[in-house]
């Protein structure tokens, strides 16, 4: 899955994840950190490979905007 899924529940080493209202399960064995409901995870073949939170998306947009403003100033 390229799109992060939202964690809605955690039971042991499995999480219930949600995309657009559809629920499925993901194993947490590959994550070295805790996840909690409200977090997002990248899931590949049924295993979470990375935890994300929405603030990370904001950071990414900032990166894009840095490049874009540098271009606007002709500075790039």
């Amino acid at each position, binding site marked *: *899955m390229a*799109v992060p899924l939202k964690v809605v529940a955690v039971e042991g080493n499995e999480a219930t994840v*949600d*995309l*657009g*209202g*559809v*629920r*499925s399960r993901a194993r947490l064995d590959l994550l070295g950190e805790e996840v909690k409901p409200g977090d997002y995870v990248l899931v590949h073949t049924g295993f979470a490979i990375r935890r994300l939170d929405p603030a990370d998306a904001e950071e990414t947009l900032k990166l894009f905007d840095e490049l874009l403003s540098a271009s606007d100033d002709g500075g790039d």
Partner: protein
Amino acid sequence: MPSGTSTGSVPGSKGRSMRKPLSEEKITALHGAGGELMNRLVAELRELFPLRAAGEVGLDDLDDGASLSLPQGEVVVTTDSHVVKPLSFPGGDIGKLAASGTVNDLAVMGARPVAMTLGLIIEEGFPISELKKFLSSLAEVLREVGAALVTGDTKVMGKGEMDGLVMNTTGIGVAERIIRDSGLRPGDKIIITGPVGDHGMAVLAAREGIPVEGEIKSDVSPIWPLVERALSIGGVTAMKDPTRGGLAAALNEMARKSGVGITVREEEIPVRPEVRGLAELLGISPLNLACEGRAVIGVSPDRAEAVISALREHPLGRDARIIGEAIPEHRGKVVLETRVGGRRYLEMPLGDPVPRIC
């Protein structure tokens, strides 16, 4: 259960009939055999339809056929078989689908639905209460559009010889002006009357038992009231209902047959978030999923806004949008302008991703 014998005792014995109501029973081979049992079944089912004639001879006559007295105009005929699985799904069932599908085929040719025939093929053991439920749904659609059920047929196949229930319908309508799916001209605006992919996704989710929070409902409904509005404004050059293969199939066929290209903007194509989410998870495009309550309408540019306004006045057309236009380039192809401003072809799908969708 022995055929026929359990359905009753001699009326009048012990002073009152001990007959079990038909609805508690299951279909047996005798129900399709043309005899007393079938007549009784048909008599009970007939009651479900408020309109039963569109001419001199109608359903109540139980004659070999029906006759139609049609108003002026071109007569349009359509036929469909309905094999949807499962028989019931969120938003509808095979009855609603059979009637709506028939009405909609007539509607997108520009025809007001007048009458319908109904052939039933039923598996032995099928609960009659279920049958009644589906026929009630079918009747409700016909009532809504003012069309009559004028004649029918009932056959029964042995247990295991077929899958539950199949319906076959023929629809008859009359058009003041026939609209084809090949009538697009460069410059015509392309309208979709509402969100796409609902029916396909609803049936797939129901069939596969996919747990969805906030159910996905089929859009199945008769669109004649909506189409009637568009036609009354004028300027409609082409129409198609995006059933099997979804919007992508309908647009590609219209482009090919009209000898034009079509360009559509992804941003303008309405898709419900829950349909989008599940489609993404399954790797299917909502644009390839069947709709059963939508129309693709080609309109000459000067009338497009008026048609949109007229559509939006009807509950089924609230989300109607202009999604693109016909163009002279890329003849026979559909170009998708993606949300981020990129371009690619929207291909004809190989087939509907969901078998037995309608």
